[in-house]
């Protein structure tokens, strides 16, 4: 489904930080018909649900994580006309202002790029096996999943029903 011929890994799960500018450049590199690159960067915040957050540790399910992210990318590629997709998700201990996740999508037109980028983030939030444990002044706690994340992902299912099925 990648039309570039040269396929680099779409998905990385890693402890290391990443270079946002370089990732965005790579999404446009080597082709002259990319008109739009939409991207998203998620960062650790120093507050969540009213408590201060000193740090967090991201646990994940090695093996399944990569597979889940690749399936989400494949779904996005099946649904929109995309040239390239890149997903990077970190795990381990992170502090406020640290980058957690990057999603970048290259397409001919901005509508597809925006939709696919947001779709991937929404699906990632409900289907990729990561769990956050926050360190707060009241002690460590596992972050609860948000209902708004389920509803954000669900609206894309409705979109499928409305579309070609």
């Amino acid at each position, binding site marked *: 489904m990648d039309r570039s011929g040269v396929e680099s890994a779409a998905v990385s799960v890693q402890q290391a930080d990443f270079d946002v500018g370089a990732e965005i450049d790579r999404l446009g590199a080597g082709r002259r018909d990319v008109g739009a690159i939409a991207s998203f960067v998620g960062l650790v915040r120093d507050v969540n649900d009213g408590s201060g957050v000193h740090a967090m540790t991201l646990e994940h*399910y090695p093996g399944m994580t990569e597979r*889940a992210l690749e399936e989400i990318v494949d779904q996005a590629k099946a649904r929109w006309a995309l040239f390239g997709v890149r997903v990077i998700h970190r795990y381990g201990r992170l502090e406020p202002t640290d980058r957690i996740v990057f999603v970048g999508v290259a397409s001919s037109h901005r509508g597809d790029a925006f939709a696919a980028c947001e779709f991937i983030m929404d699906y990632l*939030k*409900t289907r990729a096996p990561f*769990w956050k444990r926050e360190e707060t002044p009241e002690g460590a706690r*596992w972050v609860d*999943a948000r209902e708004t994340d389920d509803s954000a992902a669900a609206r894309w299912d409705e979109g499928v029903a409305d579309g070609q099925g």
Partner: protein
Amino acid sequence: MTTTVKVLYFASLREAVGRSAEEFALPAGVGTVGALRAHLAERGEGWQALGAGRNVRAALNQRMVGAEAAVAAGDEVAFFPPVTGG
């Protein structure tokens, strides 16, 4: 030939049951992910985190599945709370 399943636990569920992985011999009559979960929930202290009222998700061979998914010896089954990445 193996007669066990590999069971994995993550995040708060891992802490509640006190382990991250085990090889588990499938009892007679336990043929689905939901039945396996109910069986494990009966183990006692800590294991009620897998109980019927709890918000637990499951994966079979590294794919998210519902309680009705058929499980057989050699499979990898994981139980965990709703995910919170991103």
